[in-house]
């Protein structure tokens, strides 16, 4: 998409001259840099509970955020009204951060190169509701049909279409159309006398509606949720203490997100408050580990053609054969850290938020081990295949992630399922105990949401099967 075809030009009549005028207003008190982030967001969601479609909602929101940077200072203001007076007013408020003579002159806004990672012709948000509502009805039927012990099913489908435009005082003008869709299914199973157990599944991406009809169907997610709920009916108490842990492929990559990803975001490292600060070049993982953050994978939930600073996303090597290679940079951090350039990692939740360095899709490269061989190698340990959320304390490096489906490994074989348990480790240490890496790299199904300083953004993770020789498991047995 080009500027002239964007909703901002076509519908709101915003011209290049207008943008230059707003940037001039933003730099009217001096300041080193200014940018404008326009957003026009359509959302919809449909949910089913007790086999009834109980809720359907749609909405529209729009706004513009104006940022002015002066040295290490940032001034920020936004407006949910795209009229010229309101944008000018926001620009004047943001301008107050600086105190100096006005920067004037032309900004030579030009549309630079951009990826085309999600060439979606008709976004799911633009399709008929009658088609989308079928997805949750199908998921509900399939989960209930999976097993007679399934007694409650909830399914949710949500999509959005975000149109963004970034104009910066260093001459960037970029527009992007970012579709996103996901569905999720939650199922409860119970036996005659036992307590209920929950299973959960979901996925999606920057895809057309056809993705849910051809690739990952409602029946796929429903069966996965129902299978997990049924499996957990036999769960025994989780073990407690240090042991060998094997992570299955895909979503367990949340380990990387928590253990190393957040700690490598440049804002924390610029300030020296991360457990990884000052450790570029040092060994922070076993040599079997190469960890990538890649915002350029086609159709993925965490991918973006340009980041929210207007910079193209890229494939960044965070850890290479165990050595720390670099941080995730946004425009501000790369300037202040005298880094050659942003790594395309500047992201924000919406026009009402200041961008900061964030992950996109974070994964570990495949190794050479046969996944079955990895499980066979463990005399006693835990095999984790599905997780809930995680969290990290950047400064101490301690992180947790919660296993929602895992199994005991006894004598190299999977035996009993175990109840939910939190795993805890320390970021710069945990990956040093990775002793086997499988050849089965898998990315998650597209359901991740990452929260940082109150801002949520969609992300992806991925990992092959790995063996970690030592990790603390928070069970009770």
């Amino acid at each position: 998409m080009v500027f002239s075809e964007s909703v901002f030009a076509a519908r709101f009549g915003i011209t290049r001259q207008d943008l230059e005028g707003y940037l001039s207003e933003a730099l009217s008190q001096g300041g080193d840099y200014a940018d404008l982030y326009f957003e026009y967001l359509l959302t919809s969601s449909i949910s089913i509970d007790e086999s009834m479609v109980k809720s359907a909602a749609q909405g529209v929101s729009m706004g513009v955020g104006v940022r002015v940077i002066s040295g290490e200072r940032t001034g920020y203001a936004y407006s949910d009204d795209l009229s010229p007076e309101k944008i000018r007013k926001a620009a004047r408020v943001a301008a107050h951060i600086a105190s100096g003579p006005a920067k004037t002159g032309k900004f030579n806004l030009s549309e630079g190169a951009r990826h085309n990672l999600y060439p979606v012709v008709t976004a799911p948000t633009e399709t008929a509701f009658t088609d989308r509502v079928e997805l949750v009805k199908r998921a509900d039927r399939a989960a209930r049909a999976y097993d007679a012990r399934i007694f409650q099913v909830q399914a949710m489908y949500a999509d959005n279409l975000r149109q963004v435009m970034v104009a910066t005082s260093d001459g960037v003008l970029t527009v992007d159309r970012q579709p996103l869709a996901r569905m999720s299914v939650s199922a409860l199973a119970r036996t005659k006398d036992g307590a209920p157990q929950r299973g959960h599944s979901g996925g999606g991406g920057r895809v057309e509606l056809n993705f849910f009809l051809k690739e990952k169907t409602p029946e796929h997610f429903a069966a996965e949720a129902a299978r997990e709920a049924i499996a957990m009916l036999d769960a025994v108490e989780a073990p407690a203490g240090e042991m060998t842990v094997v992570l299955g492929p895909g979503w367990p990559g949340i380990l990387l997100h928590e253990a190393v990803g957040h700690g490598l975001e440049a804002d924390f490292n610029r300030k020296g408050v991360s457990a990884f600060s000052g450790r570029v070049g040092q060994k922070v993982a076993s040599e079997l580990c190469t960890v990538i953050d890649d915002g350029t994978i086609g159709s993925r939930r965490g991918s973006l053609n340009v980041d929210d600073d207007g910079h193209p996303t890229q494939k960044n090597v965070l850890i290479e054969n165990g050595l720390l290679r670099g941080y995730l940079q946004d425009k501000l951090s790369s300037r202040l850290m005298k880094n050659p350039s942003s790594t395309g990692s500047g992201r924000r939740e919406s026009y009402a938020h200041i961008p900061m360095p964030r992950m996109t899709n974070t994964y570990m490269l495949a190794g050479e081990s046969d996944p079955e061989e990895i499980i066979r190698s463990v005399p006693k340990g835990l095999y984790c295949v599905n997780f809930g959320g995680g969290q990290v304390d950047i400064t101490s490096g301690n992180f947790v992630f919660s296993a929602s489906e895992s199994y005991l490994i006894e004598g190299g074989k999977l035996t009993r399922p175990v109840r939910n348990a939190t795993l805890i480790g320390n970021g710069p240490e945990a990956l040093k105990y990775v002793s086997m890496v499988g050849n089965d790299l898998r990315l998650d199904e597209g359901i991740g949401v990452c929260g940082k300083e109150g801002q949520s953004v969609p992300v992806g993770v991925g990992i092959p099967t790995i063996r970690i020789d030592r990790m603390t498991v928070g069970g009770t047995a």
Partner: protein
Amino acid sequence: MSENHLLDLAQDIVRRAQAGGASDAECTIAEGEEFSANVRMREIENLKEAGSRGAGLRILIGKKTGSSYTSDLSREGIERLVQSAIELADITTDDPHAGLPEREELGQIEGDLGLYSAAVADLDTGFKIETAKATEEAALSTDTRIFNSEGASFDNHAGRHVFANSRGFAGEYRSSYCSLSTSPVAKDGESMERDYWYTMARDFSGLESAVYVGTTAAKRALRRLKPVKVETQKVPVVFEPRTARSLLDNIFEAVHGMAIYRHESFLAGKLGEKVAHEDVTVVDDATIPGLFGTSPFDDEGVPSRRTVVIERGVLKSYLMNTYAARKLGIKTTGNASRGLTGNAGIGHGNFYLEKGVQSAEQIIGGIANGFYVTELMGFGVNTVTGDYSRGAAGLWIRNGELAFAVSEVTIAGNLKDMLTGIEAVGSDLEFRGSVAAPTLKIGEMTVGGR
């Protein structure tokens, strides 16, 4: 914009929805202004200032519902809002329990609830920046081991909440708050730890002082230095008020009306039974003036009230909105909650555990070997089964005293056992948000470590 304008607009949207074919409608309009100043290492880092508003509509056509929202309050935007909601009712299912509260259930509590102070908006920007700087400075100057900082912030917010429905309810209220926080970083050798402290109030005079906030945060970071990872063992666990509060969040999830009718709570079917130690009384009260969980009416236009949830260990009530109550054949408890739009969910007012008589020192003093938890991490709580497993950090209790820092461990148990195992309830209840608890001691949990 005048007060009446938004209330009139909400009522107008309801009428337009009815004219468009809705048999019932409810409209929420929210308007807010926010300001934040962050300083870090004695310099201004960010200043942010803006306002926004939006409207949400939910309509019923018979027993089918549709919802929509918009940030565009122009005539065109409102027309689209109404059409969007009506269009969606077509794809939803007839639900015999869907609907607005009965007329006689609607209303609001009268009198000044102390939710709004005009003075907050009048505070000078320079003063707010200086207050944040003083807070960080207090932290940095506490000890030479406080070597860095993630900064300090002064935030304030003022908002207006408007709600109207087709059964004659129309109400609005304003609210404000300001808050002050800082997050210093301590270092000793290779050990680096951070902690934080904050204070929040409806107006500036209600805040703790900059010096108190800064030094409290610094002391908390300092006492975490050089932590030990203890061995795996079963011991008494004491939650300080900041972490005890999260147990109240878990109880709230378990008495949530939606979870009850779906049987996805370990407290479903337990009304009238003993579910906690007899020293445990849990209350939801949205009527206490000035507190953060207080409001004159809930998000369906039902008056706010006080509900005893657990009384001396016995489960007395779940928390309900109209829908969940109808599913269970009972009455709403005035706990409807939603954003701008959609079916109402369930929220809490001021949700707290009543204080006991012992001080935290007395509780700790009675423990020979135990764990005092000052931080919890992760989401390892399953309210369907009650299984509880979270990352934790804190201080080890040895012979009645806080002996050394502990981190990178887990605490685990089951909420059913944890609630009945609350052996001591502290006297130190205070409200730093809408959920509050005093110091709590649980007889035994598994600490997972080395």
